């Protein structure tokens, strides 16, 4: 389980010969590819992304199209996922929701991980009042029930919800606190290392040290964190949309579809099944990738059941 840190020597060397040295990137790739669940996750997410991008142009039915000959049709024929009460194609709606989930998931993950990295690293590197203020803001944001306040802002106003950009910003605003605390404690331990001290004594500025010497050394944590934030953000978005918050009527979301489908689940299960399976596959895939990345990048953590 525990591998000697810093060496990039794998045991897969040919017998008798000297151990083959590999670049760190190749080593990580090999560790990742050996994890079957993670590889499956990559395939699932890649397939879903492809569907979301090219699917709408292949399907004869658009999101807004209404098939007047097929109201509430079960799956089959030209509607593989069935149709809704209004005659809209479930597959087109699901793909539309999937696009939205993907965009929001990746945007929120990037944004909140960036905030976490910046706040955590700068707070710990400079210490003093900056650290105290950051910690206090982190605590404050943790105390505020995020789900409720986001729902309040994106769904509270009378004029039919608000834009996706605002939703992304809000989800990111409430998603960085715990990772930032981890970044802070990691930075605290790196701050006094020789290479950081050397950089400081050479006269490098604070921000430069943070960006060039501290953040690259906690990159593995940031990568893992960003991946897991993707699934967190997607779940938060679908959860809000399930209650009808944050989606503007012509558009739709997997959460909206699930919320509507759940009400008629007993009589018309296909209204629920298509979006549900899509959402679960997406989250499962992203989480599997996150686990695989953690095993590859951070073998000491012993996080999931993969062989390291």
């Amino acid at each position: 389980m525990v591998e000697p840190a810093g060496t990039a020597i794998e045991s897969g060397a040919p017998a008798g010969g000297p151990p083959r040295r590999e670049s760190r990137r190749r080593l990580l790739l090999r560790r990742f590819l050996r994890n079957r669940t993670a590889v499956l996750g990559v395939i699932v997410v890649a397939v879903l992304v492809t569907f979301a991008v090219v699917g709408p142009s292949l399907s004869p039915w658009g999101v807004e199209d209404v098939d007047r000959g097929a109201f509430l049709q079960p799956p089959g024929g030209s509607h593989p996922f069935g149709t809704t009460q209004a005659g809209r194609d479930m597959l087109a709606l699901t793909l539309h929701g999937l696009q939205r989930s993907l965009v929001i998931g990746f945007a929120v993950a990037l944004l909140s991980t960036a905030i976490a990295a910046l706040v955590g690293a700068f707070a710990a590197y400079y210490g003093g009042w900056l650290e105290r203020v950051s910690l206090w803001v982190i605590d404050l944001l943790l105390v505020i029930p995020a789900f409720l306040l986001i729902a309040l802002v994106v769904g509270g106003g009378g004029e039919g919800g608000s834009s996706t950009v605002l939703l992304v910003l809000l989800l990111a605003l409430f998603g960085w606190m715990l990772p930032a605390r981890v970044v802070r404690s990691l930075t605290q331990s790196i701050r006094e290392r020789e290479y950081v001290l050397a950089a400081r004594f050479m006269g490098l500025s604070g921000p430069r040290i943070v960006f060039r010497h501290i953040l690259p050394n906690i990159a593995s944590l940031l990568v893992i964190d960003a991946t897991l934030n993707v699934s967190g953000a997607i779940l938060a978005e679908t959860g809000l949309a399930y209650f009808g918050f944050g989606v503007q009527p012509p558009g739709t979301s997997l959460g909206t579809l699930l919320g509507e489908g759940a009400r008629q689940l007993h009589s018309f299960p296909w209204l629920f099944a298509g979006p549900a399976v899509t959402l679960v596959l997406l989250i499962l895939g992203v989480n599997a990738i996150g686990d695989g990345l953690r095993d590859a990048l951070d073998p000491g953590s012993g996080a999931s059941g993969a062989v390291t």
Partner: protein
Amino acid sequence: MGRYLLRRSLNYALLLLVAVNLSYLLAATQLDPRALYEVSNPPLDPVAIENNLRSRNLSDRVPLGERWLTWASDIALRWDWGESPRGGDVGEEVERRIWVSVRLIALGSVLGAAAGVAIGAWTATRQYGVADRGFTFLALLGLSVPSFVVASVLQVVATWINDTSGVRFFEFVGETGLHGEHFGAALLDRLQHLLLPTVALTLLGAAFFSRIQRNLMLDALGSDFVRTARAKGLTRAAAARRHALRTALIPTATYFAFGVATLFVGSAFMEIIFSFHGMGQYAVSTILGQDVHGAVAVAAFGGVCVLGGALLADLLVVALDPRVRSGRRDGDG
């Protein structure tokens, strides 16, 4: 130790104060109670609407600062959390609903944590075995399926069992239903209604806790003190149970304290799907119903839960960890 807890509590109180006031300002500017009255048919007299809103401190024509002052002083002086736009005291509503939520989540969260800890600790002793791989995959699945999908699927399965067996064994609407007069009928009825939400909460909780507990247990099993215990002649099982598990339970207690506290508002999906009129369902209905005071009360309650969880976590760690009790704390998380 007492001083440390006192200082933390004071800081928590300050945080809570700021958070609640921020929530009020946000709710008062984002929600629009006037819209509720303006859509009514036949149309109401504008003067009557205004009087109605003013009497409940909800009129957007009163300056925000003035409304805030009225709201804050009502709470500070009389512990009056205000009225909802259609009338009805927010404080009473919250008081009643908290117990609904408690009844809904108490059993499920304890069972989920217990099952998760047991599975996690057990699979860690069989790392990479068949059972370990199986449960690890199940945990990944459990963490990836949203709670509303779990609850809805359970409902379908329960309906199917009800229909095929012809006996209405599973109940999934509300807290109580019709029941006979015989002894224990009321209790049995309650338990029947609790069954499905409890199963759902247990599954989700077990997935979450088994993952945490497995990691912690793996760390503990590899540590020196477990090897020492084995060297002194303890069996593998005894060393794992008495030395490794005991240490590995300390951080889980923290997660549990936080998890239970945040579940009050987090169980909104369960409450809506199974028609329990608790705090989570209130959170959603206050926002949809433009209920400024109700939404703020829910936010305040949510904040209290988080802080209660944090304080409970502190206390649990003090109780469980001798190193903390003796005052040797190396860095806080």
